[in-house]
């Protein structure tokens, strides 16, 4: 019991950038990070769903985090990446981000502030806020991001 408690006190996040803001994605959900590549458009989908890519023989749906979060459309730059996440409920999804910065380890008790939020709120994708070296990282709730609202 003791060990499990200690282990759960910290969590690792991958820090990504979207526009001017920093977001953190729980590393346990991340399957892979790949460079931007050609995305095959799938017709009749929501705007934020960009299409599908081939990831080593698997066809993976790709979404634009910017569009999903109501930011202006992506400008594809050299630093853009696709983060492949695996979610229990939604399967594997690729999410386009502007840049991948670093991996941080946050102490859940001292460095993370949980945010109480309304589950039905359409625009809330944030689970909490992490404080790291003076900066703030918004911690993404991936299930809320993937959910269709």
């Amino acid at each position: 019991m003791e060990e499990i408690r200690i282990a759960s006190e910290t969590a690792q996040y991958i820090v990504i950038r979207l526009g001017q803001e920093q977001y953190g994605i729980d590393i346990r959900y991340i399957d892979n990070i790949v460079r931007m590549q050609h995305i095959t458009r799938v017709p009749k989908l929501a705007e934020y769903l960009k299409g599908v890519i081939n990831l080593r023989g698997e066809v993976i749906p790709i979404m634009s985090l910017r569009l999903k979060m109501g930011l202006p459309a992506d400008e594809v730059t050299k630093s853009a990446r696709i983060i492949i996440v695996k979610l229990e409920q939604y399967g594997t999804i690729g999410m386009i981000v502007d840049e991948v910065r670093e991996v941080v380890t946050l102490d859940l008790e001292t460095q993370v502030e949980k945010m109480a939020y309304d589950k039905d709120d359409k625009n809330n994708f944030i689970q909490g806020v992490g404080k790291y070296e003076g900066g703030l990282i918004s911690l993404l709730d991936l299930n809320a991001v993937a959910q269709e609202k």
Partner: protein
Amino acid sequence: MDVSQYLEIFLDETTEHLQNLNTQILELEQDSENMDTINEIFRAAHSLKGMAGTMGYKRMQTLTHDMENVFSEVRNGSIKVKANMIDILFQCLDALEEYTANIREAGDEGTNDNEPLIKMLNDILKEKAGEGSAAGKGEQAKPADESDGRKWLEINLNSTDKMVIGEAQKQGKMVYGATIKVQESCLLKAARAFLVFKAVEELGEIIVSSPSAQDIEDERFDLDFSLILITEASVDKVIAAISNVSEIESVKAEAIDLSVMKLDDESREAEEHKESMHKEAEKSDAGTAVTPAAVQAPQAQTAAPAAKQSAAVKQSGGKPVVNRTVRVDIEKLDVLMNLVSELIIAKNSLVAASEATMVQNGGAAQSGINEQIEYLESVTTNLHESVMKVRMVPIESVVNKFPRMIRDLTKKLDKKMELYMSGEETELDRTVVDEIGDPLMHLLRNSADHGLESAEVRAQRGKPEVGSIWLDAYQDGNNVVIEVRDDGNGIDTESVKRKAIERGQITPEQALNMSEKEIIDLLFLPSFSTAEKVTDVSGRGVGLDVVKSKIEALSGEVEVKSRLGEGSTWIIRLPLTLAIIQALMVEVGGEKYAISLGSIQTIEDVMPEDIKLVQNKEVIHLRGSVIPLIRLDKELDVTSTRKPEENMTVIIVKKGDKTAGFVVDELQGQQEIVIKSMGKYIDNKCRLISGATILGDGEVALILDANALI
């Protein structure tokens, strides 16, 4: 012991045995004297019992044990097969299926003891006792006559019991057999028996009783019951103790001689099964030369030997040798299939690369590579075919249960009917076979209930009294066709129309203009039923729409042909495989799409001025038929790369009886493509796309769903 790892095998084999029993008992009904069938039934019941025992499913074991007893008597010729017996046996099979289903779902056989069934089985056995002795045959019956009331001689000892008795004798204890007869006037036989048991247990230990302690407790015995007990007390003392119980008419007891006692079939069996079935045996074994480890090892394999053994029995019975097969987890085959798919993709990219270099080099010095690539192509195609074949199973496994179903329906609906099946050996992909059972069952029930008329009506119409239903399966090119046909009433389109109007699904005006075909299609609407009354069998309006959606989910089609008064035919057409198809690659607005070659009729070059407007929709005239045009660029929200005045390439696609022309920009040729899911997240979100595939250059192309587009 932990048997959970054998659960899968157990379930598989149980299902097989049950199916086998169903088929054989049906045969027995037709030909009650066929020894081969009887032997086969006995073996299957026997294996089932062994397996259930091994896995610790006591209730299942008890039921199969009693069934086996009945079969054993049938085999000995001391019971004749009767109609009511067949019914009981079928009920037993249903009960066993229920156990199996429970085990499959909950890992537990459930709590239904099925006592009425067991009682009926025992009744059959009792009947035999009378008949058997009169006829002078029936091994078991004889001792009863000779033993002048010493019925314990009839008790069958299994090896464990025998061992315990031997052990006791070694220790100088006495082993007695006793038969106790209760007074005829006794009201609470079970209570008396209980007192007898109690009295005896004060003196020693009861090893076996006949009938079993459970049966005695439930009062399932006539007037007498027998015991075998181990005690240190004298015979007289035992008799006295038992006689002390009131309402006991007589007691007979004697020391027994092991050699006189018979070992039942089961105990010979138990020699093989004992490690698992009788843990006590294990203990005594361990005491002798056999080490526990050695006992453990065979134990681990008991699930398998059960099967092996039945195979061995089969051979010794002079039956044809069993197929040489390996049972493989379908997941392993899926992995293999995926790898083959990858290989095909890799091969495709090699082909693409070689073509590209060929263009650069002007075709020189390439023939060597080309040859190799062609060779690779043929190998991958063969490999693909072989893997596909491995996944193919005969539809037999599904259709086998139908004769039984029709038999039950005959009784339930009180209509005479006969099911004729052909092509059971036709093979389909395993995944398809698993799904096809329910739709077929619906169609058969439908034919039996709605299709076939009652005997009187049939007589009036001059049809044979017994209705016929046919189930025919055959391969047709890249499809498998399954037809369900009956010589019944056919579909009454007028009545369908009326029903649809009543339900407000169509207006009377619409009804006037509907073709026969369109009316029949109404049947496939959800919750549509023309049955005047809702029966247990069908008529609840769930069915045909489910059939249709299930078949379409398997990329198949359903078609109906019907002639009023003569019967109807339901035709199901299924693709042989779901994973890899031949497709035509097209380009629309710079994007690549695949269209399944199976649905493509022709490809036409159409001039813009040939397009006509009908009800404001674009159509073309083609060899006498009017075909609506579907501009894929509009459907797919892209802009065509062709100018409006240019000629158009139109792909004529046929799905079912609907035809349409797809307007595309470019044709890219035919290709073998591997169908992939687009991922859980967006699968099914776009109706027009049925899946994706990965092209030779690693890019993803989408597969158009011609059905949805038309």
